[in-house]
C-alpha cells in the first residue's frame, strides 16, 4: 500500500512509521504544522507544534529512509479545534480537543488530502487495533489496556477506518515501543510522553481559557438557587469538581460540595452534594458509528465517558435521531460536551457528544 505516516516527532508515530516501512509499504512521512506561531523548542509535556518536534520527526524519517514533508494545517486546526474548544467552554461544555483533532484534522483533512494524492491509508502511532470482520472493518481496544487510545478514536467512521493503519495496536506495552525505537536508532526513543493540550503552551488551561473567554465574576448557587459563593469565570469549573470552590456559606449538612452544572448564559455555577452528581441517563444527537450501524435500535453495550474512565455496562437506544444511554449504575458526574464511546467487548460501536443528562436523584437542596 501507499501509506502516509503522520509523524508528530514523538516515539510512537516514529515506530509506527518504521513498522509500516518494514511491512513493505511505500511510506511517506508528514509532520502537521498546526500552529503558525509555533515555538522553537519543546517545553513541558506538549507533543507537537515546535520546530524541535518537526526536526525530531524529520530525523526519524531520515533514519527510516523515507521522504518527509511538513504540511500546514494551521488554519484548519485553528478553526476546527482551537476555536471549537473555546466555543464549547463558552457554552458551558467540556470538550476533548484531541478527539476533535482526530475527527476533523488527522482522519479528515489529512486523510482526504492523502487519498486525493494517491495514498491508500494514513498511519499513526495510536494504540488501537483494526480487525477486518465479516461486516467490514472494526475498531478495537489496544492490547495494552493502559495505553489504549480507542476512546479518542471513537469518532472514526467506517469510511475513515477503511483508510487507517495503526501499527502499534497489538504492542504489549509502551516500553516495548521505546526499546524498539532505541534498537532502530531513532533519536526519539527516550523522548517524554506528551500529556498536555498541544496548543496551550505552558499547560495552564484555565489561564489560557481566561484569556480567550474573558473573566467575569458570577454567582455560585446551590440547587435551590441560594447564592453560596462567587466565582471568577464560569469556564474554570467542570462538573464533578470539588477543589477550589472557596464557598463562603457552609452546606447545611457540613458535607463537601461539588460542581453540578455550569450555566454560561447566566454565568452561574451550581453546586451540591456528591449524591447529586449521580447521572442515570445521558443522551446526544451528534453521533457516529465506528463501522456498521447497530442492527437493533435498542442494544446492550459498555459506555465510557472519559479517556481514562472505566467502561460501565449500559443499555443504549436510538430514537428520532437521538442516542440515549442508561448505565446499570449511575455515572458520577457527567459534563455536557464530553464524548460517550460505546463498546461491545473490545470493539468500538460508536460515539456521541453528550448534550443532555438526567440526574439519578430528585432535586433537594
Amino acid at each position, binding site marked *: 500500500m501507499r501509506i502516509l505516516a503522520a509523524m508528530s516527532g514523538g516515539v510512537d508515530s516514529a515506530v509506527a512509521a518504521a513498522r509500516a516501512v518494514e511491512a513493505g509499504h511505500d511510506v511517506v512521512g508528514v509532520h502537521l*504544522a498546526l500552529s503558525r506561531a509555533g515555538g522553537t523548542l519543546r517545553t513541558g509535556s506538549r507533543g507537537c507544534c515546535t520546530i524541535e518536534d518537526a526536526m525530531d520527526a524529520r530525523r526519524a524519517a531520515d533514519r527510516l529512509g523515507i521522504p518527509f514533508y*511538513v504540511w500546514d494545517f494551521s488554519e484548519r486546526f485553528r478553526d476546527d479545534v482551537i476555536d471549537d474548544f473555546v466555543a464549547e467552554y463558552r457554552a458551558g461544555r467540556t470538550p476533548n480537543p484531541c478527539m476533535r483533532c482526530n475527527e476533523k484534522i488527522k482522519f479528515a483533512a489529512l486523510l482526504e488530502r492523502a487519498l486525493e494524492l494517491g495514498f491508500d491509508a494514513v498511519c499513526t502511532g495510536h494504540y488501537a487495533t483494526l480487525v477486518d470482520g465479516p461486516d467490514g472493518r472494526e475498531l478495537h481496544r489496544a492490547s495494552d489496556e493502559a495505553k489504549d487510545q480507542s476512546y479518542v478514536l471513537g469518532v472514526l467512521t467506517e469510511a475513515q477506518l477503511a483508510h487507517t493503519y495503526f501499527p502499534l495496536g497489538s504492542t504489549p506495552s509502551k516500553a516495548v515501543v521505546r526499546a524498539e525505537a532505541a534498537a532502530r536508532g531513532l533519536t526519539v526513543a527516550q523522548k517524554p510522553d506528551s500529556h498536555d493540550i498541544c496548543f496551550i503552551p505552558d499547560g495552564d488551561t484555565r489561564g489560557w481559557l481566561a484569556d480567550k473567554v474573558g473573566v467575569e465574576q458570577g454567582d455560585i448557587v446551590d440547587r435551590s438557587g441560594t447564592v453560596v459563593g462567587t466565582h471568577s469565570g464560569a469556564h474554570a469549573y467542570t462538573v464533578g469538581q470539588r477543589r477550589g470552590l472557596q464557598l463562603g456559606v457552609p452546606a447545611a449538612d457540613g458535607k463537601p460540595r461539588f460542581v453540578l452544572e455550569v450555566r454560561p448564559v447566566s454565568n452561574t455555577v451550581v453546586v451540591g452534594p456528591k449524591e447529586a452528581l449521580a447521572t442515570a441517563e445521558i443522551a446526544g444527537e451528534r453521533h457516529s458509528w465506528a463501522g456498521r450501524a447497530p442492527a437493533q435500535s435498542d442494544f446492550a453495550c459498555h459506555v465510557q465517558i472519559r479517556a481514562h474512565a472505566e467502561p460501565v455496562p449500559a443499555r443504549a437506544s436510538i430514537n428520532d435521531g437521538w442516542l440515549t444511554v442508561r448505565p446499570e449504575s449511575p455515572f458520577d458526574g457527567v459534563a455536557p460536551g464530553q464524548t460517550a464511546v460505546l463498546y461491545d467487548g473490545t470493539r468500538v460501536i460508536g460515539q456521541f457528544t453528550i448534550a443532555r443528562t438526567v440526574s439519578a436523584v430528585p432535586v433537594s437542596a
Partner: protein
Amino acid sequence: MSIYLDHAASAPLRDAARDAWIAAATLTGNASSVHGAGQSARRLLEESRERIAAVLDCDPIEVVLTSGGTEAINLAVKGLWWERPAGRRAIVLPDGEHHATLDTVGWLQAQGAAVRHVPLDSAGHIRADLFRAALGDVGDGVAPAVATALVANNEIGTVQDAAALATAAADAGVPLHLDAVGAVGHLPVTFAAWRGAAASGGGLVALSVSGHKVGAPVGTGALVVSRHARMAALAHGGGQQRGLRSGTQDVAGAAALAVALEEADAERESEQRRLRALSDRLVSGILGRVPGAELLGDPRDRLAGNVHVHLPGAAGETMLFLLDLAGISVSTGSACQAGVAEPSHVVLALGRAESVARSVLRITLGRTTTDADVDALLAALPAVYERAVAASAAPSLGARTGERS
C-alpha cells in the same frame, strides 16, 4: 530519476570551484599571521579578492567577504542605518524584497527606523517615479537614511534598472544597497559603472552577492562596500576587512567564490541565450498544457532561467510535493525553516490575490539543465496539476450524523 529545477535556491557546485576550495583548504595558515604560512594564505586570499573585484567591477579593497547573502545584506542595511547622518532615519524599501532585507528592516524599526514602502508594478518592476519620490522630502520629517533594492527578484525573476536606481539615490544623496544575490552570474553586475560619479556617501555604496547561487560553496559571499560608505560593523574582533567584518578570513571560500564568479561571468552570455531558449519552451509548454496558467513577472525583462507560473486552483505546496515524489525538484518561492508555507509576499506585491499567491510554482533553470529536464517536467505537470486541483477541493470525510454544518 532526479531532476533539479531549483537553481535559484542553490546551484550545483562547480568542479573548478570545488577543486580550488579543497586545494586552498588544505593550506595551513591564518591570513592575518605574520609568518610565511600566513603570508601564503594571505596571498591566495588577496588574489581571490582581486578576481572577485574584477568580476563585480569594484576595487579589491571594496570586497568584504561574508558567509553569504544574508550576512552581506544585514551588514549593509544595519551598518548603513547605524551610521546614518543626524536627522535621518527612514529606510526606502520596495515591496517584494527578500526576507533577509525585510526582516532586517523590521528589526531596525524597533530601533526607531521609519519605513517608506515603494510599490511594484504588476510585472514586479520597482516604480521608478515612486522610488525617486521616496528618496526625497515627503514632508514626514523623517529624511531617508538608507535605500535598498533587489537587482533581480529572487522569486519572480523581474530585473530592475539598477543603474537608474543608483542614479536616483545619487541625485538624492541617499546611500543605496543593491541586493544582487539573484542577479550575479546571470546579468552584468557592474558596481563602479552603476555608482557613477556619485558624491561621497550617497548613491550606490553597497552590493551583496552570494556564492552558492553561482556554483561556489554555501557559506561564501561578499558585500561590496564603497570606500565612500559610512558603515558600522555587525561583528567586532580582530578588525579584519576594514574593521567591517572581524573574524579569521576564509581563504578557501574566497578562492572558490573567485573561480565560480569568473566561470559564471565568462559563460554568462552564451548561457543566458541557452537558458532563455529552454525557459521559453518551458513557459509555452506549461501555458499550452495547463488551462488558465499564467506567467508572473515581466515576460522579457526577467532572469533567463526563471519561470514563475500561476496555476489556478492548485496549491503550490501540493504540486511541489507531487513533483518531488516524481523526482522533480521545484519551489514555490523562498524556502523556509518550519515548512509552513506563507502566501508569497512577492506575488501579493504584484497586486494579486492570496489565492494566486498560494498557487504558484517557481521553476529555475541553470547550468546543468537540459532539454530532457524541461521535457520531463512538461510530461509530469498536467497530471500533477489535476491531482493538486482535486486535492484542493476534496470532499469531506468528516461529515457525520447530526453534524452541525
